[in-house]
């Protein structure tokens, strides 16, 4: 019983991280139909900012999160302004290649500054609680709670605020929206800012839970979060959250039930099968229906 609850907790932790990162992919896709392949690297930059803020500047927890989130927000907005906006009218393929290029650029830039894996010092004292065999660490609780709070607030913003309405409208019709007096560029920049900020916070939490970081850490996590977004239905915010937890669950269960070698293999096979039956993801709607 303790074993099963322990694995369930592992699953929630992993799923929360995937879900928060997947939101960055899905929001950008929702408004621009662009897959921001650099998003995994923004996550990595968040982890490195956390490293700088703790190991070099010795800041406490809250400022660390602020530094990491603010830094990635700036980077995300800068990437949008410098790399994606000039290509908004260009063919989709060019934009995707640019996104890949930006990702490789960020990786190699970090690599040039710090090729070595880095150790992130403990920011919050790690406390473990033991409930008859089940070990719950404070970091696991923190990751799950912060992720759920972030997701709930984003859901609220998108559904209940004017900015959220503008975002949803942009997803429907980008050509007509400026005629209604909506500042399209500002909305897009804000979308990037929120997505990047989420990536940065996820990077910080990841660095706290798994405190050895390196410039390539964002690649695999980025792919997985992207897949989580696709499974949930890319462009759909609740879908990304659902997809994150589904991927976390599938990965954990695959490793529990079978030798851990097959973890990614099983996880990705199941996802491929799911996509055959639901090509638009679980909560996704086929584009043609919107017209």
């Amino acid at each position, binding site marked *: 019983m303790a*074993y099963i609850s*322990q*694995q369930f907790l*592992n699953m929630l*932790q*992993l799923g929360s991280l995937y879900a928060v990162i997947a939101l960055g992919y899905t929001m950008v896709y929702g408004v621009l139909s662009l897959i921001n392949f650099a998003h995994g690297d923004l996550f990595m930059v968040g982890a490195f900012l956390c490293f700088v803020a703790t190991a070099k500047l010795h800041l406490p927890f809250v400022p660390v999160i602020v530094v990491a989130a603010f830094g990635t927000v700036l980077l995300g907005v800068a990437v949008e302004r410098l790399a994606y906006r000039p290509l908004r009218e260009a063919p989709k393929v060019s934009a995707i290649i640019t996104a890949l290029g930006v990702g490789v650029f960020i990786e190699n830039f970090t*690599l040039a500054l710090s*090729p*070595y*894996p*880095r*150790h992130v010092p403990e920011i919050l004292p*790690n406390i*473990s609680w*033991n409930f008859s065999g089940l*070990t719950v*660490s404070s970091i696991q609780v923190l990751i799950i709670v912060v992720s759920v709070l972030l997701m709930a607030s984003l859901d609220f913003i998108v559904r209940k605020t004017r900015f959220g309405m503008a975002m949803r409208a942009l997803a429907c019709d980008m050509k007509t929206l400026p005629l209604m007096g909506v500042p399209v560029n500002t909305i897009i920049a804000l979308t990037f800012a929120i997505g990047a900020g989420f990536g940065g916070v996820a990077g910080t939490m*990841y660095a706290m*839970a*798994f*405190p*050895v970081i*390196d410039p*390539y*850490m964002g*690649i*695999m996590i980025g792919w997985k979060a992207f897949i989580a977004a696709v499974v949930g239905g890319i462009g759909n915010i609740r879908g990304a959250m659902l997809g994150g937890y589904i991927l976390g669950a599938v*990965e*954990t269960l695959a*490793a*529990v039930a079978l*030798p*851990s*070698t097959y*973890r*990614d293999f099983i996880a990705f096979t199941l996802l491929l099968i799911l996509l055959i039956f639901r090509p638009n993801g679980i909560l996704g709607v086929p584009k043609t229906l919107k017209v």
Partner: protein
Amino acid sequence: MVRFCTSVLIMVLLFVALTMSGCNQAKDDAIHIGVIAELTGDIPAVGASCKNAAEMAVKAVNDTGGIDIGGKKYPLKLQIEDSAGRSDQAASAAQKLITRDKVIAIIGPNASSGAIPASEIAETSKVPLISPWSTNPKTTLDPRTGKQKTYVFRACYMDSFQGRVLAAFAMGELKAKRAAVLYDVASEVLKGQAEVFKATFEEKGGAITGFETYTTGNKDFTVQMTKIKNDNPDLIFLPTYYSDVPLQVQQARRFGMNVPILGSDAWGSHDLLGLCGKDCDGSYFSSHFSANSTAPGVKKFVDDYKALYGSIPDDVAALTYDSFGILFEAMRKSGKPASEDIKNAIQKITGFQGVTGTITFHEGSGDPEKSVVILQIKDGEFKWFADIKP
């Protein structure tokens, strides 16, 4: 069409210009020695140590006026290439060193994933290659004929030997009966170590409670550690690279597992101490080299290295230094600076006193005979624990 032709022309010209730029080398009478190191990629600390030791070894010889072959002194020149820790780049680096730089011998790559493809190229081009750190059997073994490659050597002992010694050590000194193993399935070396450990441990009557894996880049081992904990082992064997070790040890400790942890030579980087902090205290791992060994030559090597680079040399540095030692010894005995004669001379080396132990080669095999050092991490330092002879 015009645009297409011009772009092709420009590419051809660029290609020719770039390849030509390398052609005016190798005209002086300096002997070129190639080094392939993992300067970027997953294990940059390994590449950095290798480069440092290589530069130090070559400088020492050049300071005496060069190497004495058949009564003539030849200065040495190093050509260092980066493998980025990748197989394809290691192979192209070997190709480049042999065809463009005309090196007489190659030291490296260190990681087996790079050493195996590079050794194929060295073997077919008949250029001696000594890998300082590659412990995988396939580095010196030709998979097609099942025989040993003739131009490929290593300065370290092999995975199979290391896995056997570690299993014996776990059961003997550490009195373990139930061991769990977690290893990186993407690395041939680590997989080899894990498999040999498992086979030996079971053969001697122990039980392997868990044989868990992950792939390079994973940082979340909570699922595997939860599984391992559930089976209650009295030892955990982690044949994993030093950058993954801290996360695994920390997650094991966080789940309340306080059993001894044993590692392999992949732990042997001083960066581990900084990355792991207190969590790794008390763990053991096998190594090729101990800086506090009292063997002749070690103190001078450690002092010289420290004076130049400000840090204590790790096992990659020591093995690279010994690879150069073996190569220089062979060059002096070869009679003339030719790849084939050097290869023949390396095969005849017996009782070479290196900083990682006494090294002996036997004709027809690129694998040396030497001892395994077991180190313990204690108070933030690598401490010598035991020396295990074959």
